[in-house]
């Protein structure tokens, strides 16, 4: 998420999303565009609020139940607000054997939340993911768009601190 977008107002975000939908040649015919549209919506809003799914359904003329079905099918989409920096700890096989559980535990202790939860200050959301395809760097985690590899638990406090500073 680039910071210019964080600062958009809700209505500016909807205008942006609207333009994205209209950029498809024929929004009514192009129902296959639903997934990219929901991606864009989540980029803009940080999650998929009901109002945004309603907006997408109406704009694309796709039944709301279908939009909701797609949004709940893929684990990438979230219907509840996420923190500014989502932490995704890879729990794929390679990362797992290389010590991902210990990394995850350290993070939980440091920020005091469980998997799927968001910190009270809205800074972090903790997520477990399947293999992200960076097995050579195992164990791996991502924070926002940043990737951290070959991790050991003692590195975690310093990494998290960076984001507290950036806040």
């Amino acid at each position, binding site marked *: 998420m680039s910071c210019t977008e964080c600062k958009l107002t809700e209505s500016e975000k909807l205008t942006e999303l609207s333009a994205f939908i209209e950029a498809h040649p024929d929004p009514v015919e192009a129902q296959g565009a639903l997934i990219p549209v929901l991606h864009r919506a989540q980029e803009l809003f940080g999650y998929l609020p009901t109002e945004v799914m309603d907006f997408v359904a109406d704009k694309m003329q*796709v039944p709301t139940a279908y939009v909701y079905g797609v949004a709940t099918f893929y684990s990438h989409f979230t219907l509840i607000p996420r923190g500014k920096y989502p932490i995704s700890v890879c729990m794929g096989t390679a990362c797992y054997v290389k010590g991902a559980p210990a990394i995850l535990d350290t993070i939980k202790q440091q920020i005091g939340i469980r998997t799927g939860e968001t910190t009270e200050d809205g800074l972090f959301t903790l997520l477990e993911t399947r293999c992200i395809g960076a097995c050579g760097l195992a164990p791996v985690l991502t924070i926002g768009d940043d990737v951290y590899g070959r991790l050991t638990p003692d590195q975690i406090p310093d990494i998290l601190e960076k984001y507290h500073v950036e806040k």
Partner: protein
Amino acid sequence: MINLTIDGKPVSVPEGTTIMSAAEKIGVKVPRLCYHPRLSVEGACRVCIVEVEGMRSLPASCAYPVEEGMVVRTITPEIREIRRDIVELLLDNHPTDCQTCERDGNCELQDLAYSTGVRERFFEGERKHYENDYSSPGVIRVPDKCVMCHRCVRICGEVQGIHCLGYHSRGFKTVVMPAYNLPFNDSVCSTCGQCINACPTAAFLEKDAVHNVMRALADPNKHVVVQFAPSVRAAIGEGFGIKPGVPLQKKIVSALRLIGFDAVFDTEVGADVNIMEEGMEFIERVKAGGPFPLITSCSSAWIKFAENFYHDMLPNLSSTKSPMSILGSLAKTYYAEKAGIPKENIYSVGAMCCTAKKFEAARHQCWLDENTPAVDAVMTTRELIWLIKSNGIDFMNLPDEEFDDPLGDSTGGGSIFGWTGGLAESVLRSVYYFITGETLVDIEFDGLRSMEWVKRQTINIGGTDYKFAVAHGLQNAHTLLRSIRDGKEEAHFVEIMGCPGGCIGGGGQPYARTTGSIPLDEKLLKKRADALRSEDRSKTIRRSYENPWVQRLYREYLGAPLSEKSHKLLHTKLVSRLPVGISRRENKP
């Protein structure tokens, strides 16, 4: 043509045919669950697996197309065992309350378990558990009974064009529900009940009314009146082992008296009155030059659907209440006054082919005043069957009995309300007289009677051509109304019935399975229509305005159609509802 061998027999079918359809050509019916010939192919349940020589896996025959030279076997020891395991795994995540389940003896899963040879249970694992949704006045949702065949989702979207039902989440956690897990009552659900008809188990059911009806019958202060719809008499026999197509109103009257109802009236009289009011609405629009088309509003599922999906067209809808609400209103006013019973003491029951009529009964715009519903409780045909059976009545051996006066004598114009096109035909029989002053001689309109999804006929009345159009099944309502809205066609009168086939195919009718048929079966629907056709033809009076009881009602009580009193008692108001329905546009071929 593609040539292949199924179970040792050669068969030749067009390219693109599925293995299942090819097998049916040589009389082999592969066991199935999620498959339905009128719905898109889902391939979800895997019950219809077959063996294809040279293939490593066992394809689902409902989805797999035939190939040249294919050698298929539908019966092998391995397939039998795997099918049994598949069905057993479904059972292992399904409640074991068959004996007390509404669908006991009428359940596809139960039959499938037997026919695939599940005798022992080998698996025991995690079971899902979700809350039931009782929010809707018409339809309840019981997710624990769901076997994920998705026939409800497909019928709701593809046949009814509502797309209320969808999937939530995935894998073991998948649940069928309206968008955002909204309660049915807050969703775009039309309460048509087609999901109930399509469901192989009891994951959707009508909301129970029998309990309240029995309570009213037990109350000595209540004068309980009952009415039943045309389509109920056309289908009730199916619940008692009678072939479809026999009208049984006289037995129903007899049974209802035996159970303790104080007066038994005929919804068809309400239909005759409806024709007087709606016919006159049409005449007024003809005089005023519009707005056209006048759209019928008898089908409650269509009302709910229009209120969610067609806010802009609500002014086109007739304000006349449905026959049920008309009769209910008259029972608590006209009849109450004649019989000298205070309206508060009257408990009015409807037995309907419909789950949406439960919604209509609860709809305040159809009430007499803010404390008085026109109809207090609505039972479906299925509930009526159960009410009769659970009272230990030997239905088929009951004597024939007649309806009670003054709301018991109807014309053929009331009987034909039950199938698609019947209401339009009945309107024509009367409107012709209202406009020309002459009696219409040829009163059966073949162009409106067929099972085509959308039907159109131009009829000349008094030198002017009037365009009549009819649609049944709400997806077809979309097709017709969009075409009218986009200016692609013109119509003066439009009849819309929410369910495929009209009321005879209603969401409250006996399960098609009762007669060994499948949901949406056209043959079954035609037989039910035949029952009403024979009732219409057996009547000496077939035009609603000629009904002497209706004439008396207007003379003694209402004055004239569309009078102030008629408006107060017999008309309703349509309201725009949220959420606004969104339906997929038909994809271009």
